[in-house]
Structure formats: C-alpha cells, structure tokens
C-alpha cells in the first residue's frame, strides 16, 4: 500500500507514452503529454508527504510543528506552469496544423521524410 503512489506514477508515465506513440490526433497527443507530466506530480507529492502531518501553513497550526514538505509543493507549482506553457504552445501549433492541412492526424502530415 505504501508503494501504491509510486506505482501510479509509473503507470501514468507509461500510459501517457503509449498515448503519445499511438495517437492519431494532435490534441489527443497534447493531453497525453500532460498525463506524462501528471506522473511526475504524483511522484513528487508522494515523496514529499509525511504520514500524519498537516499542511505547511502555520496560520492555524503552531509555528514549529512538523509539517509536510513544502519544497516539493513549490517544485510542483513550477512544473505546472512549465506544463501549461508547453501545452499552450503545442495546441497553438495544432490549431495551425488543422488550418493548413485539414487534419490532425500525425500520419497524414508527411511533409518531412528521410
């Protein structure tokens, strides 16, 4: 049970990769990329969590009580911003691809080969 979060993280990574590899739609591909990213969130949060401890907000709890790791949560915040920006860019590309080619299927975009 204690290793379940790690297993979930690994599963998300693999499933996302499968989605990206076999995708037939660029928007679907972008969402699969964010699934891969979610795996790193789950991993980070599982690593930062400490059983039985509250959140690191010292407004309600006394300063100095042991709390969950805040560094990991700050890292995750950065990661979310990074992911959003990449997905936004990829979706913009997908919009333009659709306008030019009428299709979002990677196998039908065969301008570049070799």
């Amino acid at each position: 049970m204690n290793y379940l979060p790690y297993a979930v993280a690994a599963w998300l990574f693999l499933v996302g990769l499968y989605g990206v590899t076999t995708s037939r739609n660029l928007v679907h591909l972008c969402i699969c990329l964010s699934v891969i990213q979610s795996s790193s969130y789950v991993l980070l949060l599982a690593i930062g969590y400490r059983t039985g401890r509250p959140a690191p907000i010292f407004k309600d709890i006394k300063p100095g009580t042991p709390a969950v790791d805040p560094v990991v949560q700050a890292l995750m915040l950065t990661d979310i911003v990074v992911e959003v920006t990449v997905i936004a860019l990829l979706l913009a590309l997908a919009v333009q691809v659709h306008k030019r080619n009428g299709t979002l299927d990677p196998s039908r975009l065969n301008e570049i080969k070799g």
Partner: protein
Amino acid sequence: MQYAPVLPVVIPLFAAALLAALSKLLPQRVALGLSLLATAATTAASTFLLRASLSNTVVYWFGGWSAHGGKTLGISFAIDPIGAGLAAFAGLLTFLSLLFSAKYFDAADNYFYALTLAFLAGMSGFTLTGDMFNLFVFFELMSAAAFGLCGLKTEDPSSLQGSVNFAVTNTIGAYLVLTGIALLYARTSALNMAQMGQTLARTPADKLVMAAFAFIVCGYLVKAAVVPFHFWLADAHAVAPTPICVLFSGVMVEMGLYAVARIYWTVFDPSLHPFLPHLRILFVAVGVATMVVGGIECYSQRNIKRLLAFSTISHMGLMTVGVGLFNVAGLAGTAIYTLGHGLVKGSLFLGSGILLHRTKTVDESELHGRGRRMKWAGIVFFLGAAGLAGIFPSGLSMGDDLIHESAKQIGVEWLKWVSFFAAGITAAAVFRVAVRVFLGWGSPASHQRGAAPKEKEKPETESGHDRTPVWMWAPAVAMVLGGLLIGFAPGLKPGTLRAASRFEDANTYAARVLQGTPVHSSAPEEEKTQEPWVGLFILAAAAIISLANVKSKGFRESVKPLIAPLRALHRLHSGHVGDYVAFLTFGLAAFGLVCIFTFR
C-alpha cells in the same frame, strides 16, 4: 562587481520584457538595435565571469541564502571557466545570428527579438547554475523559446510538423529529467548539485541512484540529439529560420551534453566512480552509433539544411565520446571541439541562408549551378567543408586530437578511425554541395538514392533577392575563419585542460560551493604535439569521394549495391512523432536496464 553573476540572465530577460511591452511602438530597426545591445552586454558579462572564474570558481547565492554546515537552502550559481565560456560563446553566436537576421528577414515581428533574447537568457542561466532544479528551469526556458522560434514560418505546413516533433520529444525529455530529480531528492533531500554529490557519496550506489542517473542522462541526451533520441533534430533544423539553426546546432545541442557532464561530475561521480569502465563502454557505444548514423544520413540528404543537421548529429557523436571517456583530455577536447564546430557549422548555416535568400530554395538539385555568382557563400562552404574535416588549426582538429589522446589513455585507440569516418563523410557531403551548387559540376539530375519527394521550402524571405548584403556574408565569413583559426589562440589548450581537470573534481567543487574553500588550479598535463597533416588527409579523401560521386556515373553504379541496405535506416526517419517517441522509449529502457544490471 559583486552582482556580475546575475547579469547574463537578467539583462536579456529585462530586454525581452521591454521589447514585448513596446513591440507595437518600436520600429524594427530600434528593436534590432536594442537586442544587439542587450546581447553584446550579456556576452561581455559572461566574458567577465570567464576571466573571474579562471582563478577561482565564482559562487553566488541568490536571496542571500548561503550554505551553512554543508547544507543549503537557496539557489547558487557556481561559475567555472567551462560554464562561463559556453555562456559567452552562446552570446557571441546569438550576436552574429542577430546581425545576419537584420537583412535576412523581410519583416520580423519584434517578438522574434524578444524570443531570441529569452533563448539567450535560458542558455546563460543553464551554464552558470549550480542547482539541479534551477538547471531544469533554465532548460525549460531555453526549450520554450526554441519551440517558438522554430515554428516561426507558419505559412509552411512542414514548419509546423517539424516544430511539433521538436516540442513533443524534447518535452518528454524534460519530464524524464524531472522524474530523475524527484528520485534524487527522495534520496538526498537536497537540490544543490554539490550537496547532492556529497550526500550520495555516503552510501553505495543502489538501483535508485542508477535509475535516476538513467532518467536524467537520457532526458538531457534527448536535447543533445544522440542516437536513438536524435530524430527530432533534422526536422527542427529543416524548418527553423536559418539564424536560429545557427544557435540550435552551435550551442543548444551542446548544452545537453554539458548538462550530462556537469551532472555526472558533481552529483554522480562520488558514488558511481567504481563503475567508470562500464559507463565508458555505454557512452562510447552510444557515441559511435551516433557518429555512424549521423554521417550516413548526412550524405544521403538533398535538403542542405537537413544535411547540415545530420552532420551536427554526427559531430555530436564525437563530442559524446569525448565526454563519455570521462577523463580530462576528453572533456577538454570536447570543449574546444564545441567552439570550432559551433563556428564552422554556424557559418555553413548562414551560407545556406544566403542561398535561400537569393534563390528561394535549399534543395541541392534545384540549386545546381545557381551559386556561381555568390562567391562569398561559396567560400564559406568550401572552407566549412575543410573545417568539418578537421584541418589544422581549426578548433575541430585540436578537439579531435585531445579526444583521440584520451581514447588512447583509456585503451580504445580504434575510436579515431570512426571519427575519421564521421569527419570525412560529413565533409564529403558539404564538399559535394559546394561543388555542385557553386561550381556547377556534375549533372543536375545526378543524385544518389533518396526516396524523399521534392521538398518545397517556403522561403523565410519574400522573393529571391539579387544581392547579398554585407551584413549577411560578413558574419558567415568571420565565423568560418574564426572556427578554422581558433587553434592559434594562445593558451587555449592548457587553459582548457586546467578548466577540465577542475570540472571533474567533485570534492573541490563541493568544498568551494558549500564551505567557500578556494580552489587550486592544477597544472595542465603533458600534451602531445598535434599531427597537422591528418585533417588535410581527411579533406583530400572527402574531396575525392564526393568528386567521384558527382562526376563519375561508374562510381555511382558500383556503389549502389552497398547503399541498398541503408535504405531501411533512411526510412526510419519518417517524420512521424509516434515513431520518434517509440525509439525514445526503447533507448531509455535499454539505457536504464544497462545501468541497473551492469553497475555491480
């Protein structure tokens, strides 16, 4: 100038924000001038840091959160000569490519300059930092700017496909790095590279450390375009605007390799040191595969920019070997090779940009003979071929020698024949282009197998111009001459050897960052004198092969049966992003399993 370490990142970012805010109000000339000024200032700051770091690694703690008792809370920059040198080199290439782009684009959005400045800021921060997560953040900044710059020509459908391939594969690489960082954080509870290294040294390396190593290294090797993570590079280069290709091939991919070297030597060396022989085999195998695949694909391209991109992959293979031999001479050789290669390859891309500017195409067959009146571009291509072959005194030859020297020290002297092959075949490809386009030799239809349909490269410029402005050929010529003559720079080799030995000393680095102990520069090792005729010999062989290919039908016929099996390799580079990710998964899995099972 206490705050100098901050400048290479802050100056371009502030200028980018300024340009974005005023983008509608500023005429293009003012925007260009502002970005040139910002780039020059950044390069000056990085050079200042290079000088300052020669005697002692410069450490700067952001927010004033310095280390106490060997433990850190905040982020530090840990600037040593190789990092600062790479930052300065990035600034120089950016400056020259901005100069080129002044006359190259008919209409440039001011956002282009802002993106280029953000790209430079990302590269500068990447090379100067001493914190693992900060490295990742600047890696992403660099990538975000690169994705945007790559997709600039949205009139062209293939431009979008190349950008998609680029963005998807590199983003997966970034997620791999993040996973590795999370694993290391779990083990060491630190994000500062020096602290992580010292903490990992206390316990023997177990499967967690090896898995983290595999993830992080593979993530950065995706950026470094090493087989089998290399597929995106050719697509991205084929569609990115030419001044941006200069930056991609000249510094961006080398940054991936720099990250691998930095992370290995500061974080992993204390604990993975006993497994060096296995690591060397792994990296040499990857490097050799990259050299060979890159070289073969390079020669079979018709699109000049894709040809140059594959030659970059091939040369990156040699640089991977240099880093992957894990000794002082190899690292120093790679550093000098980066300088030479960046300048020569950059000048070749500028040359192809001149061709695109004048004739609206970069297809070798379409360009046949049309370069006869473009003498500067022709000079650049011929000199560039010589540079790629590694004639003395180019940076490539000096780097080559050091890498061969380090291979001999490890006992894999046969590597030099593979590097001769890679240098020769890429030089032959460029020579072939030069001879057919600028001299008009051979017949227009003569062409090796390559089933790719004719590609129409929509020009980044409106129409074929009839003159090449001086701001376009002057940077190209300056770069190729710089790359060829850099071997004459005084003190380059001993200085780089000294810097490399400092780079590889994890304990001194950690002592400097965590406790502030000044570093002592050790004396450089004994160096053998170079053999200047080797590069000339390779160039001659390359010239002979390419001339035979161009002029003699008999030669082409006799070579055909040899080439047929290579068709499969060619077909693998399909342009489909799913294929690329499948190969990435395979490479990652293989690398990870090798690391876990052989490091005993």
